[in-house]
């Protein structure tokens, strides 16, 4: 199972990861971080297919994808 790991303190709330996710896993929080941004958070983890597109699009190195067990690589990156 893939797991999205978000460093909320680094997020600038740009929403690019939310649009990039084909599975609608991510959402913008109702809370703000130290910098004052509404940060991205995981809304629906079980839907995640570990495609990594959210992490590839994030301009601020906020997202890492963790992995338990086998994962399908949809593309080389």
């Amino acid at each position, binding site marked *: 199972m*893939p*797991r999205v790991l978000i460093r909320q303190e*680094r997020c*600038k*709330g*740009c*929403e*690019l990861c939310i*649009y*990039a996710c084909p599975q609608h896993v991510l959402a913008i929080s109702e809370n703000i971080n130290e*910098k004052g*941004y509404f940060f991205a958070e995981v809304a629906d983890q079980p839907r995640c297919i*570990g495609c*990594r*597109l959210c*992490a*590839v*699009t*994030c*301009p*601020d*190195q906020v*997202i*890492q*994808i*963790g*992995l*338990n067990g086998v*994962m399908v690589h949809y*593309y*080389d*990156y």
Partner: protein
Amino acid sequence: MELAFKISTAMKDVPTHYCPGCTHGVVHRMVAEVLEELNIRERTVGVAPVGCAVLIYNYLNNDFMEAPHGRAPALATGAKRARPDLILYTYQGDGDLASIGFNEIFHAANRGEKITVIFINNGIYGMTGGQMAPTTLPEQVTTTSPDGRDVSQTGFPVAVSEALATQATPGFIVRCSVHDGLHQIQTKKLIRRAFQNQVDNRCFSLVEILSTCPTNWGLTPQQSLEHIRDNTLQHYKLGILKSPEEV
């Protein structure tokens, strides 16, 4: 936990000063990942531009020099000729490379300097507050073209990559974009090829990347990506314009 996507060790663990959603950050990360994957970070020297990426030396974990506006190819040329064992790259915006620095890049490419150039084309001067650049699209509103770029007065967007690709000197000249996942993946691959060319001592390499400036375009980050898809791509064709295998 094992990681299927991890933050590159060639990236310093600090927040960047870029506006939210600015694709400078995406390209920074891709360059860092390539330096790590090719295992060249410790012998790589970057040349920082004048423009929003002026502080890139705070973010990537390789050595850096800071060039005067547009002069990054000259610094890279000198360092590469003195120390051919080093990997030299410049990271330049379109105001820096296509305007004040056009002469520098044109001749560096013509001389076939074995350096790698990362060229961020966001069609505007970001750092100084959104003035028109040579690469600005026709009709695009900027602070110095408030009625939209008038091509009868200021010409059409300057196609740097096409201009460099006409030179007889062998080189690797490509244009790509980071406006969606597919293109981001392709861009990373082309950046890797551009560095691999230098590792193999092959040729001059330039990767032009269509990027966004949400702040000065007056759009949200996602609208900016859609703007590239719907408008910028009408004026700039993606693809490999020249590759050393052809010549």
